[in-house]
Structures are given as C-alpha cells and as structure tokens.
C-alpha cells in the first residue's frame, strides 16, 4: 500500500482537494488583480476566476463581487457549444466577450479560458473574466446608454482560440490591439488574464499529480453533490407553491415574475416581461446569474456557490425581452437590468415569506462618472465609481447605512482625501442622507449625501441610477425608504436632478450632490421602542418633528 492509497477516497482527502481548488481560484484572482492595469479591475474588483470541471460546472470561484461568482460556467458552455471536444486540446486558450457566444454580460467583460488535461483527457477548465476599460464602440469606455445594437458597443470576440495547442494566434491579438482607444491597457489586462490562467492550470495539475486524476475528479464530483445537497436541504424547508409578483419601474414599465417552489425545484418564470430596447438589456445567462444570486442569498448564503448548488434552479425567459436579449440587441447597461431583477426577486420573496429577507435597499449600482481637467495639474481625470447606500431593516435589526449594493462585495469607496488629490474636486461633505423614509419598528439604514465641488471648467458628469422614482420597499408595516439621484447645484442658484444622463457639463463651483436612498423599514413604526426612538433623536437620525408625526413619539 502506498502512502496516499490509505486515504484515496476518504472525506478528509476530498475536503483538502476542495479547499485546495478554492485556494487556486483565490491565487488566480490575486495574481490577476495585481498584474492588471485598469483601475476597474484592481480597485472595483470587476473580475472573477474559476476552476470548473470538464463539463464546465463551477468547482470554485475567486471573486471580489458576488455578481461575478456564477459567471464562468456559462462561458464554458458557450465554448463547448461551438467547439466539438476533439477540437479542444491541451495548450488551447479561448477568449470570448460576446454575450451571444458565451460572453455573459457585455463586451467590456472579456472571458479567457483554458482546458486542463491529465492522462490524455480533459479533466477541468480554468477561466477568468474581467472588465476591460475600452473595447472600441461609439463612446470612450464602450458603454453608452444611447446604443441600440451590439455593433455600437465594441469589438466582438465570439469564442475563439487565442492560443492553439500553445501556439499564439497572432491575427486575433492584432485585431484586439487595434479595436481599443487604450491599447496599452488592453494589452496589459489581456496578459494579466493569461498569466492568471497559467498559474491556475499549473496549480490544478499539482493537485492532480499529488492525489491522482481519478481522486481529483471524484472529489470535485463529490463537492458538486455536496452543493446540491445543501440546496435541496434548504428547499425542503420552504412551502411549496407558486408565487407571483410584479413591480413598477422608474420608467413606468412593469416587471413580472412567477416563482414556483416544489420539493425538488425552484423555478423562476420571467417569460412575461418588456421587449428589449436600447442598451438596458441582459443576456439570458446574465439573467440566470441575477436569479442565482437571489436563490443563494435566500436559501443558503454559506453553502459553496458551485455548479451543484444551482442544480435545483430553473429559469424561464422569452427571447427578445429585456431578460433575454436577442442578437443584435445592445447590453452596455446590463447591470442595472440584472440588479432590478435581483431586487424584484427579493421583494417577491419578502412579500410571500415575511421575515426571510430584509426590507428593500437602495438597490442600484449608481454608476457615477465624472471627468475633466485636473485644476492643479491640468491632466485629464475620470472617476468611474459605484455608490454606497442604505439597506433595509429586518426583524430585530435596523438596516446598515452606507454600504455597496447586493451586487458588490469587497468593493471599497474612494476616501475624500484621496479623491481631492487625484481628481482635483473638493469634497464638501460625506454625510448620511437626512431625508425621511424607512421608518418602522426597525428602521432602514441611511444612504449618503455627498457633495463634490467642481474646481475647473468643462468637466462632465454621466450617471446610471435606478430606484430614482420608486423608493425601496418597506415590509410588514415599515415605511418605504427614499430614492437615488444626483443633483447638480449651479452657481446661479438653480439646480437639476438626474438619474440616467450622459455628458452633463459641470463647471467651477458647481456642486454635484450624490444622494442614495435610505433603506426600507420593517414592522409598524408604532412598535418601535421609546428607547430606540430616544437614541435616534439623540443621534440625529430622526428629527423630533418626524418622530411625532410617524411614531407618535413625544420625546
């Protein structure tokens, strides 16, 4: 008996292999973050890495944001649809950014993937996806709220080989390099991704070498089954039935969902929804990701987010709708579509299963772009950042204040001291949103009210905020929260309010006021304890007048 035979298929060996695969995904993630050249990758962490089994089921992911966890299986499926197995060989490296060919989100997000071979057979995939700054198209940065066709959004890479059996496909690389306004960045980000895959492949092979191909594959299969076991265990605790919900959007359109829960299935039916239009559309795969995120948060947040976990989940869509865009529809602002869906699913669940999820939160990426000349250096600067906002309350807890949306995780805001130096704006205040809203037995968390004072002429502002007209919802008698918006305070005393806007001119001493919503409240305000109210008033989360009006509190 050799050393390892003692433990070939025991649970501890499986655990160690599974943890080892997670460590590989994390190492790939760190390697790519460190070597990437674009801030959106190394600061916003708009990237993800995965180890997948031969069929393209996710075994482990490394990600900075939850919205990017279940992405890469869809990409591998896209590759497997296009390439027969005998055309996938050791040393191949695939690329796709086209949602119509496994690219998932929008053209800015480039997927790179390599098959891993052992004993002559395909045993795994390593893959990553990252947001590239510019892939061509009609506007710098490639994303435009005005686009109507994918052709306007940049170069399409429809699942092709960048490397064929280790041989670089120079033609494709050359095409990539010329289809961008920022070739140095694209080149840097591309090679960072390739380097990450190479590390991943090497590490997976090290694990296989140590434990054997058969043990490795069995351990991964066991891990998938474990994920499924966790999901099914959670499903068993839910009441069977069909649950419908519909919700009006800022645009006036209505989104609809029907959720069916059986002993073995969780079916999300989105077939009855608005027709695709503009660039606010999601691919079917992107829609699945938003549904997966809600499913996992709802059922078992701590379980591994692997392929097995999502087996009980079925998503139904209608081609040609915003949740299942058809070629050549545009997808630049897919993320606000996905987060609206994620939020509606949570709301549907909150409606039918009170208490299982918190009241509504500000639920928008609140993408904010400000740019122009730096007043002190004259260099051009661009801020591209999501915003923090208020989260909903839940039974026994007030909601958290100033936190990124459910699509974000380890995303960090930019400190005022850094922003003033880097962008040359003056940050007049970083405060919690004082507007009313979100009152309840437990109150919603506060959004923010941040003021950027512009210090030069000819700066511009672009924003993509939803939940700007219809506020986050309250639960069980808790009041609704407040809305997300941007207000520009002009030097002449006038002001204007924006939610979706491109290239608004801002000049010296104009103030850009970023306001994000207060989260929804939970429970009847009348039940809030006098002690909590006294503390709210003391801490100025609540004015005495509002306390009297909503809570009947005479402090």
């Amino acid at each position: 008996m050799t050393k390892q035979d003692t433990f070939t298929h025991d649970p501890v060996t499986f655990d160690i292999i599974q943890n080892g695969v997670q460590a590989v995904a994390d190492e790939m993630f760190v390697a790519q973050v460190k070597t990437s050249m674009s801030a959106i990758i190394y600061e916003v962490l708009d990237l993800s890495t995965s180890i997948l089994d031969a069929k393209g089921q996710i075994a482990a992911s490394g990600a900075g944001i939850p919205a990017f966890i279940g992405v890469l299986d869809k990409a591998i499926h896209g590759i497997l649809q296009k390439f027969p197995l005998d055309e996938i060989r050791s040393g191949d490296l695939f690329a796709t950014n086209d949602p119509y060919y496994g690219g998932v989100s929008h053209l800015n997000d480039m997927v790179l993937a390599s098959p891993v071979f052992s004993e002559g057979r395909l045993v795994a995939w390593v893959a990553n996806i990252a947001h590239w700054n510019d892939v061509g198209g009609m506007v710098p940065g490639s994303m435009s709220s005005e686009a109507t066709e994918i052709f306007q959004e940049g170069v399409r890479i429809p699942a092709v080989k960048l490397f064929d059996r280790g041989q670089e496909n120079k033609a494709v690389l050359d095409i990539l390099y010329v289809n961008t306004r920022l070739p140095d960045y694209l080149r840097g980000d591309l090679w960072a991704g390739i380097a990450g895959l190479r590390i991943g492949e090497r590490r997976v092979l090290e694990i296989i070498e140590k434990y054997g191909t058969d043990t490795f594959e069995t351990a991964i299969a066991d891990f998938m089954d474990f994920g499924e076991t966790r999901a099914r265990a959670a499903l068993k605790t839910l009441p069977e039935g069909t649950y419908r919900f519909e919700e009006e959007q800022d645009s006036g359109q209505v989104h609809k969902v029907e959720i069916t829960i059986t002993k073995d299935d969780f079916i999300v039916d989105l077939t009855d929804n608005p027709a695709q239009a503009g660039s606010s559309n999601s691919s079917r795969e992107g829609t699945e990701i938003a549904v997966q995120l809600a499913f996992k948060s709802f059922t078992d947040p701590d379980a591994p987010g692997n392929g097995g976990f999502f087996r009980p989940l079925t998503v139904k869509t209608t081609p040609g709708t915003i949740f299942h865009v058809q070629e050549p529809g545009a997808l630049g602002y897919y993320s606000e579509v996905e987060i609206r869906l994620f939020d509606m699913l949570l709301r549907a669940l909150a409606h039918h299963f009170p208490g299982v999820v918190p009241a509504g939160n500000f639920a928008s990426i609140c993408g904010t772009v400000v740019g122009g000349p730096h007043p002190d250096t004259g260099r051009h600067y661009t801020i591209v950042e999501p915003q923090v906002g208020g989260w909903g309350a839940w039974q026994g807890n007030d909601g958290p204040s100033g936190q990124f949306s459910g699509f974000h995780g380890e995303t960090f805001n930019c400190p005022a001291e850094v922003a003033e130096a880097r962008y040359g704006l003056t940050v007049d205040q970083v405060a919690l949103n004082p507007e009313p809203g979100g009152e309840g037995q437990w109150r919603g968390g506060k959004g923010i009210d941040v003021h950027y004072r512009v210090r030069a002429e000819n700066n511009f502002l672009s924003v993509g905020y939803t939940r700007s007209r219809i506020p986050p919802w309250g639960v069980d008698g808790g009041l609704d929260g407040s809305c997300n918006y941007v207000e520009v305070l002009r030097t002449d005393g006038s002001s204007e309010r924006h939610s979706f806007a491109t290239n608004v001119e801002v000049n010296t001493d104009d103030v850009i006021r970023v306001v994000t919503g207060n989260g929804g409240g939970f429970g009847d305000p009348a039940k809030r304890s006098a002690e909590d109210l006294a503390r709210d008033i003391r801490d100025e989360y609540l004015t005495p007048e509002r306390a009297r009006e909503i809570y009947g509190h005479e402090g």
Partner: protein
Amino acid sequence: MDNTITRVSTDVGGTFTDLVYFETDTSTGVQTVRTAKSDTTPPNFEQGVLNVLERGAVDVDAVDMFTHGTTVVINALTERKGAKVGLITTKGFRDVLEIGRGNRPDFFNLMYKKPTPFVPRYLRREIVGRMDYQGNEVMPLSFDGLDETLDLFRAEGVEAVAICLLHAYTNTAHEEALAQEVAKRWPEVAVVASHQITREWREYERTNTTILSAFVQPKAQRYLEKLETGLTEGGYKGRLYIMQSNCGVDSLEATKAVPITMVESGPASGFWGAAELGRIIGEPNILALDIGGTTAKCSLIEKHQVKIKTDYWIERNGKSAGYPIMVPVVDLVEIGNGGGSIAWVDDFGKMHVGPQSAGASPGPASYGRGGENVTTTDANLALGRINKDYFCGGTVEADMAALEKGFGKLSDELGVSPAEAARGIVRIANSNMVNALKLVSVNRGYDPRDFTLVVFGGGGPMHGVALGQELGVKKVVVPRGAPVFSAWGMMMSDLRRDYFVTKLQDADDHEALDSLLHHTMELAREELGREGVARDAVHLSPLIRCRYQNQEFGVEVPIPAGPVTADTLRKMVAEFHVRYKREYTYTLDAAVEITGIHLIASSEVGKLEIVPLPKSGAAPADAIKGEREVDYATEGTHVATIYNGEKLEPGMTFAGPAIIEDPGTTVVVHPGNTVSIDDFGNIHIETRS
C-alpha cells in the same frame, strides 16, 4: 561591579505570561538562560508579570535591561473594555466613521451587520476649518461651538477625546491648535490627535485609528504605570522597553502617549526573532509560523527583512469588514487554528477544526478539566505524537478516559474509527495552516521553495514538518526555546520607529522630496534623541513609496539617507521600474508619482549577542529516551525514536521517524527526515529526499 549583563523579557499572552532570562558573563562569554511561564492574570495583567519574575527567580535589581510585550491593548479592544471616547472632526465629515469603506465581505448575506462604530453619532462633533490636500489652509480653524461640544462630552462622561481633521496628515496645524485648546479648556481629559499616530491619508482609517487609540489609552497608561511601579519597587534601575507591533521596542513614555502601537506586539516579537535567527543561521528568506493555543500566525521574511505595513485591521474576516488601525504592524496572517482548537461536525457531516478554542479552561479533553470536545492537541496525543506520560512536560496527567470519550463522540458523528477521526483533525488543521502560509507566500508571488520554515509557539514544532513538506520549503527549523520564542525575539529587538508620511508629488521634483525626507529624518533624530540616542547612533533607512500616476498599488524603493539630488531621484525612478516589474510583472511607459515616504529609524539598545553552546561530546544515542509507535497521519504508523530535547547538543545528527520531547513542546520528525543540531541549539530538519 559584577561581570554579568542580565536581560529579561516578559510576554503577556492570552493564556500564559512567558519569561526569558538571559545572563551573559562578559569575562567568560558564557550565557545562562532560564525560562518560566505563569498564568496570565486579567484584568490585572501586571500581577502576572510580577508572578513570573518570582517564579523565574529573577533578581530584579540586578537586571540590566527589561523588555515587555503585552496583549493588554488587543484585549481591551476585543472585549470593548476601554474609555468612553468623543470625536471632533472636520465639518461635514462626522459620518465618515459610520460609512467606512462600504465593503461587505460576506457576499450572499443580506443581513450583514456592519461593524458598529466605537463612537456613537451624537459624540461625533464637527468643527469649522479646512486644509486642502496640498496642506494649504482654505478655511481658518474656528473654536465656535467647542465649549458646547466639551460640555456635552463632560456631561456624557467622555474620558478621552479623539481629534481627526481632514488632510491633517499633510498639515498638522489645525489639529495641534485644536488639541491644545481642548487641553486648555479641559485639562483632565486624555486627548489624542490623528497626526500623533499617523501621517497617512484616508480619513476613515485615520479617524478610526485615532478613536481606538483614545479608547485604549487610559487603561494602557494605568497598566504601564503599575508595571513600572512594580519593577521600581523591586529595585529595577534600568530602562523599561515596550515591544511594538513594528518589531521594534520603544520607551515606556512614548508607548504611554500612543499605546495603540502595541496592538500586535506579541506576534511581532516572534517574527522579529525569526528574522534575527535567520541572520544567525544564514537563512535570509524565512516563512515564520507561530502556533499558540487559539490561533496560528504566519509572516514572510525576505532577505532578512520583516515587512511592515500600515493596513492592519482587527476583527476582519469573511464575515466582517473589521476595524482599521493605521499603525506600523508586521505583515501577518492569523487563523483560528491552535492546539486548543475544537474539532466539530456540521449538519452535513463535514468535520471542521476551530476557530472555537477550548482555551486554558476547560482546555483540551485530555487535560481532564471537564473539556468534552477534542482538540488538535488531543488528536496529537491520540496518535502518539505527544507522549501521554510526558504531557505538558510532565506537569499534567493526561486524562485518557476523557480523551477516549471525546473521540468516541466525534467518531460516531463522522462514522469513522477514532484513529481516523484523529488523523482527520491533524490533516484538516495542517490544511488550514498550509493555506494561511500560502496567503503570505504564493498569493504574494513568492515561491515557498526559496524559503526556510521556522516554527515556534507550543504547537509549531508538532506540525512544522508536515507543513514544510506540503509547501516544499528548503528545510524546517525549530528554534531553541521555541515555546517562549516571542519573549526571546524581544531581546533581539532594536529601538525602532517607522514613519509613514503621505505627500503626493511628481517623481521629478527632487527638491520637494528632499524637503520631505530631510524634515522626517530630523524629526526621527529628534524623537530618538529624546530617548537618549545620540544623533549619529540613529540608523535611518528611507523608502520612497511610488507608483505609476493614478494607480493604486505601488512599491517602496530605498534611497540613501542623505540629500536628494536630481541624480539620486533618477536612480530611484530607474530602480522603481525594476521593482515594479518584479512585483507586478510589467512596466508602463507612464509618469511615476511619489505618494510619500516610509522612514525606518532604529538604534540598537543592548541587543543580545548569541554565543555558541558548549558541547559535552555526548552522542545522539545519549539523548534517546526510548521508542514508541507514532501515527504520522498521511504517512502511516512508524516506530519512532524518542529523544530528550534537553540533552541534544550542537553537532548531533539523526534521522526520522523520531520525536523530540522538550518540556514546552514536541517536535515531530517524519520518516525520511534528517535532523541536525546547530551551534546554538536550534533543530534543523531536512525534509527533501
């Protein structure tokens, strides 16, 4: 006048207070070492120190140098037992503390609870006045409303005032004026301003750091004063040095002013010890691992240098964003896996080890103090790795019945034999620790094969070889005195201060950099001068922090500690590209900017020189106690030779499978390993075949 130099260091840990006593006879060069342990005595930690001095039979009035490390600061923070703090900050910014950085590490948890600020909103008060990022005053400071603020603080029982104003890292004038004014209007209250602690940007981190420092200040001050009084009453006449988180020591006075710098003093001294050990044994690149009762901590040492950073956070993990403390702390990763970590089975039949620990009470099942859960220590005992007849150095009788009962329960839940359960615990604990070691090495671009693994703490030597083999390190070294290695490291420490100063400037402006460096070096000389260090005895190592324009990550580049000329700056920039490429794999054809400096100022303060141990000429066979069956978990069961660690001496070599038993720890030597004892009594284990 006697011919001996006596050094004593004490290290207050979570469970035990350790002592190392080192006496050097200057006429013969002979060194005598004594170690002792006693229980840590919260909340009066100084009592434990005085106890261990007594237990170690230390004649306090003959001691020449006394160094001290303590967990008192981290304990006050984690137990939330500190002062009531009020904050004064710039108008418009009181909510910075509550908003924080907005991140949410627990991705799928919709009911994530943000860390609660240490100061509630009504005690966060604002004041008018503004600096810009270049340090220019754009609005003068106004004391309007200050009386009202201080009246509120008094009425609410505030014990310490924290001051943090925007851009105070680059211009301290407003903070200084405000701190003076507060002290003038309210002389009894403790006041600390952010610039006294850190000169780096990022207002959330700086504000939180200042508040946490204020929070621990009164308590730490009292503790240090009591310790000083206790020693003085015992006749101690020398200087008392306090271990800091940056691997240096500092004076009692300086530490009392900003006690937050002690936050990770325990681990820091161990890692410094590992770096110093590397110098002695000629190993520049070290992975250092300290396994205690509750946690394991590791750090990477490259070319003899410990890495000191200021992005340190407490209570930060996969479930919480934690709290930043922006002080110089040795770069470390800590996991909840130690000797006392409890093994448990989840609802899905999977076994886990830690982070829950059995602590000192009830302790592992085999301590026989009522602990029902088995721990890593119990698994090591069950597998014959620890000697049941020499448990805790023979001071505790192993309760084998309790052990059997505990494993019975665990193996029932898992559906495997008790021996398999025990092997599982060891393998899972090892897997957790390997992943921690990877975080400080492979995940930062280092190849463990270029490193020597140094293991210490009570549990380090038990797991070191298995971890070293898994990582493929050069070799594993168990230092002499491994169980009290942190206290040993303290004796090797220099008086050291790390100055991190943010000042954004272009990399072609040598005059600006010269001015910044000159002022910081002068400040360091002046401050160390106050500690009695002569000007020319201050050793200065400046590092310039630079990056490509507008990037986030950068590197530190060394520069000579003299005037900065256009030429030195050009060389620095050239070196930047080289270092950047090594770290990030590419270079850019872009402008370079300087974000500030990191100046290391240090001075030796009676550092211990280690001399070789004497040899009696004994053979390894003379150290053999016997043999027994040992289960090596992944490598089967073997009959191992048992050595008495106290009888090993320089020059001895032998092969595994073997166990080395020392009163404070057990070294597990695997089959195929080769062991050699160096001139200083350290155990070197070659793991490569």
